[in-house]
């Protein structure tokens, strides 16, 4: 041992003369780091209450609770996370997985209270000093994968191939992609309330993710007897509210439904297991074999009732068969789905138009009648020249191609007037029949009621969009037609609605075409109802008003689908069918 070893430790006293390393709290504060995981904050407006945070929290520190400030609305459960700091371990997994990015943590870490219950609170609802803090831990964009990952790409036919054929544009998922896509689901269930038919979406996505495809199909059939059709053409309200859509892309719910049904050559085979209840001896007549009519028929038949479906067409499916083009929904797919109805014991009577007198006899022969006739009339432009030869409703074109397999050319150049899905379908069909297509629409592209996907695909196929064009009149010029239109300017709506188009005086352009197809909307036609019945019905804009059970108010008569007010799409028609089942069963079974 050296002498210096005795001295050296005393040199430590030198530190006493230097500045201390510690902070003199509370006079000197020490804020948490900018990404410190401190107390929670939540943007209540942004939050959709999906419950992802609650699910990921391994400490059960979060509890989704109703709050007085937020209410249930489509795409929002109205619940908000309540945090318990007796349980939280400050891992911030909840922040990382938040589907909207509303949840965050501030860099505040000091909070004392003698009341232990205070440490359980709903961030954003109960005001805290750190509510406005911009510092602290937030979700990072580059690890957003935590909230779901990217959507699997759907293979489609390239546009130049598409326009030569009526083959399906969408080619369908391969199994690996479907399973991976389904596995993105976070099981929040927001989609269920958005789906008009309230299909059990999280359950069937889980089944697909676990490769239980047969289970998935059975789950579809619990409340949708046309799952393959919906898997191809549904308006997918579910995807619009998908929690993953807030920061990324929603799950391809529609394509997954299609994938699962297409796994089976025969859906009737899969659904054979479902047994009918013992016959009740009650009889139900359904007018219209569209989605609404078929849905009601299917579940009423399973409930043991004797169901007969009457339709003027030769095959089932309604407008989904006559209107929707083959490249979106092939005939064979509908045929495959129709087998299931036969199996369930539904009697299908095609080629049977119900007129006033037959309606009266249906009323006396059957215990209940369900009217599901859809929209049979087409709206008119009300311009000069509309009745010229060569001017036709888009629906007629579609029906001719779909039902009569009539693929005869429609000329070199045509104009389609409208901006909805029917206009897109007619344009793209005309394109496939070899024509150059001009689409004339009064407003702007962003105002089009047509699905964005449809608009995109129509553009890819070379449809020329002439927006803000107002039809003036149609003239005939030799063998051709002259379509005359003016320009429109957009006038902001005082009430905050869509801006309105107004004709700019003095503008007039002409377009020489072979044909004009009008797609400005469909209209209800109640002409098949005897006067004594229609007099008793409540009618609004030509549509039959019904209650929550689709009951018309006239004893024994129910109505649903496009012929009743509400959204005009297949899944809404199916939902009407389901409600009618409830109403009719209540009537028949007491």
């Amino acid at each position: 041992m050296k002498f210096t070893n005795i001295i050296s430790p005393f040199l430590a006293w030198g530190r006493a003369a230097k500045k201390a390393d510690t902070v003199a709290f509370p006079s000197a504060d020490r804020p948490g780091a900018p990404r410190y995981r401190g107390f929670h904050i939540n943007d209540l407006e942004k939050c959709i209450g999906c419950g992802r945070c609650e699910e990921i929290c391994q400490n059960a520190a979060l509890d989704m609770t109703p709050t007085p400030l937020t209410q249930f609305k489509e795409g929002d459960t109205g619940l908000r996370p309540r945090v318990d700091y007796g349980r939280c371990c400050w891992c911030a997994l909840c922040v990382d997985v938040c589907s909207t990015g509303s949840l965050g943590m501030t860099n505040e870490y000091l909070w004392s209270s003698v009341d232990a219950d205070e440490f359980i609170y709903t961030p954003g609802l109960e005001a805290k000093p750190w509510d406005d803090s911009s510092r602290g831990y937030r979700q990072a964009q580059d690890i957003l994968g935590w909230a779901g990952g990217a959507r699997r790409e759907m293979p489609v036919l390239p546009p130049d191939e598409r326009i030569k054929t009526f083959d399906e544009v969408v080619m369908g998922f391969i199994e690996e992609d479907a399973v991976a896509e389904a596995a993105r689901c976070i099981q929040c269930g927001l989609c269920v309330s958005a789906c008009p038919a309230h299909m059990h979406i999280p359950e069937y996505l889980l089944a697909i993710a676990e490769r239980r495809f047969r289970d998935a199909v059975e789950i579809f059939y619990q409340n949708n007897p046309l799952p393959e059709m919906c898997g191809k053409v549904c308006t997918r309200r579910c995807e619009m509210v998908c929690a993953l859509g807030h920061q990324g892309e929603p799950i391809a719910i529609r394509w997954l439904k299609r994938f699962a049904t297409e796994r089976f050559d025969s859906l009737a085979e899969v659904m054979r297991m479902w047994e009918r209840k013992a016959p009740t001896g009650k009889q139900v007549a359904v007018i219209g074999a569209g989605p609404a009519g078929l849905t009601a028929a299917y579940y009423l038949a399973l409930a043991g009732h004797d169901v007969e479906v009457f339709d003027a067409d030769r095959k089932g499916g309604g407008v989904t068969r006559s209107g929707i083009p083959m490249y979106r929904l092939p005939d064979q797919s509908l045929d495959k789905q129709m087998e299931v109805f036969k199996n369930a014991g539904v009697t299908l009577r095609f080629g049977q138009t119900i007129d006033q007198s037959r309606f009266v006899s249906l009323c006396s022969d059957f215990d209940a009648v369900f009217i599901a006739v859809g929209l049979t009339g087409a709206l008119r432009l009300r311009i000069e020249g509309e009745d010229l030869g060569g001017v036709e409703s888009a629906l007629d074109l579609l029906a001719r191609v779909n039902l009569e397999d009539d693929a005869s050319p429609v000329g070199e150049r045509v104009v389609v007037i409208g901006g909805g899905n029917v206009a897109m379908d007619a344009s793209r069909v005309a394109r496939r029949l070899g024509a150059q297509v001009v689409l004339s629409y009064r407003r702007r592209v962003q105002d089009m009621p047509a699905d964005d996907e449809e608009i995109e695909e129509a553009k890819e196929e070379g449809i020329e969009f002439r927006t803000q064009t107002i039809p003036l009149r149609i003239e005939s010029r030799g063998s051709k037609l002259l379509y005359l239109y003016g320009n429109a300017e957009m006038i902001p709506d005082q009430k905050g609605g869509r801006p309105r188009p107004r004709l700019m005086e003095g503008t007039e352009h002409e377009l020489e075409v072979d044909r004009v197809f009008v797609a400005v909307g469909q209209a209800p036609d109640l002409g098949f109802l005897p006067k004594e019945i229609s007099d008793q019905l409540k009618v609004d804009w030509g549509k039959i008003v019904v209650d929550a059970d689709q009951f018309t108010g006239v004893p024994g008569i129910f109505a649903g689908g496009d012929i009743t007010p509400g959204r005009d799409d297949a899944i809404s028609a199916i939902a009407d069918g389901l409600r009618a089942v409830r109403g009719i069963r209540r009537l028949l079974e007491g």
Partner: protein
Amino acid sequence: MRTDPQKTVRLFFGPQHPGVTGNMSVELWVEGDEVTKGISRVGYLHRGFEKLMERRLWIQNFPLVCRMCVPETDVNEACYAEALELLAGIDVPVRARWLRALVLELARLGVNLMSLGGQGGTIGLGTAAQWGITYRDFVLDLLEELSGGRIYHMFILPGGVRRDIPSGFFSRVETVLETIEERLPEFDRLLFDNAVFQTRTQGIGVIRPEWVDELGLVGPMARACGFARDVRQDDAYEIYDQLAFDVVTETGGDIFARALVRRRDIALSIDLIRQIMKRTPDGPVAVQLPNLTRWRIPAGEVYAKVESSRGEYGYYVVSDGGLRPRRVHVRGPSYVHGVTLLERMLVGTNIADVSNLMVSLTICPPEIDR
């Protein structure tokens, strides 16, 4: 062994005792000043982590594993992440591997500063303990800035790291390294040049080289006996094969030698951190993980290990292809060091040296109990 009840005092040392390393106790049979028998009593920190992990989703264990060892949480995160990546076949981005090494070295630096200070503390050099803790706090400031938490960083996540570094981070790391380097001579004078420290540690608590393989001793316990064993070199993980360094060894196997190993490990970590900061490439810091609540990991079993400040630290993870681990077993070095080795070494130790000895074995009870 038979003890004479007239001469022997049975002493319960811990778990509430400042000289004990964390929440454990040793039961001592003492004759005069000398311990004749000692039994490690563990279990005070048993939280059932391994069992708990079988009931949680793969990702939910990520905030759990760091709690396995409080002073050096990150080794747990690294092992768990590595095990999952091996099972799931995930390729971690290169930048993330460098940043992981950075975090692991910062953590090692912090824990060595603390335990070296603690080594002083056990013989009454409270100043050393305070300083050690303070310098570690400088490191914790950095880890807080990087990860958002001071102790439980939850930064090394399966698939990468949780965040990129904040801007200007490396320069702040450098400042801390310089501060520590500047203060270390002071620290050395207080400890290694101190006659009291020398007297209380030299020739005391000697580990015999033949015990190293017999008991499976690792880290400073083995390295202070001349064995150059370090997972960072023997079985390099992350990017350690790309760093230039020599494994620190000392001979003598006593408390002093182990303290010196840790002192030199501090210098090594500082050097490695500088190498890492110079060479960390740009790029992404994490891969996109699948839906975390539906994440199934293919069936299989792996052993992932890293070099902790206490030696080889490993996780054995079994998956049956499900949403949760089938089994996770944690192999920390403290079990051998704190039970088998300690019990052997306690015999013949002076009662005043018990805590001195325990700290020199860097026993981490939460890692024994799990």
